[in-house]
């Protein structure tokens, strides 16, 4: 019976790692004139990642209007971005811990519970 836990966790790590890169770029460019904040639709990307079997993933980046553009056309709202980063890194941490637990369980099974 195929176990989907590992696959879900792997894709979850992929998507959150990718999202972290985008959110990092947003903070880095919080003062760049004309820069528009970027993000991915987390739920949709995870769904499509689960459906595809390819190792290389492609993501759809969109530009959320988190705030009105300021005078120089920048749409980065630092509070919104920091909240997203906290959410994203917690999700990533959760996935790594679940993966560790899963591997511990497998190890335990291999050793016959000893």
């Amino acid at each position, binding site marked *: 019976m195929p176990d989907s836990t590992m696959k879900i966790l792997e894709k979850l*790590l992929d998507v959150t*790692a*990718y999202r*972290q*890169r*985008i959110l*990092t*770029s947003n*903070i*880095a*460019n*919080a*003062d*760049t*004139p004309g*820069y528009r904040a*970027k993000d991915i639709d987390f739920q949709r990307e995870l769904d499509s990642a689960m459906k595809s079997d390819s190792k290389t993933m492609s*993501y759809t*980046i969109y530009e959320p209007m988190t705030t009105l553009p300021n005078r120089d056309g920048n749409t980065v709202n*630092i509070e919104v971005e*920091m909240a997203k*980063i906290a959410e994203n*890194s917690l999700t*990533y*941490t959760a996935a*790594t*811990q679940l*993966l*560790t637990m899963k*591997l*511990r369980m497998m*190890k335990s099974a291999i050793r016959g519970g000893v």
Partner: protein
Amino acid sequence: MKEMFLPLKVSATALEAQKIRLNTIASNVANASSTKTADGGPYRRKDVLFRSFLYDESSVGVDIPKIVEDQRPGRMVFEPSHPDADKNGYVSYPNVNVIEEMVNLMAASRAYEANLTLISTYKDMFTKTLGITNV
């Protein structure tokens, strides 16, 4: 593997850009009363230009292509005894407004902090990934 450390690179470019901005602000405040420069004339307030550049579609760094001089006029103060006074007795002081510089200083140092926080967030994430092998 190559893209694994991209977030750290992106944050590092932002840290450097904000540091240059801090240096510029420091120069402006230091020269708030410099009535003469090597080029002649009073000091002119300097400002940085931020520009983003792509590492790839997800990672966008930031750099400073050039530092521009503020073209606003300086303030004229009547000081006939000053060596740099013009024939009417007015001295042209730099167009630096110290309060404005302080506001920019706070913005720059907060932006610097935000990017430092991101570096440590990513470092934590990476350490957690390495922890998967400790089963």
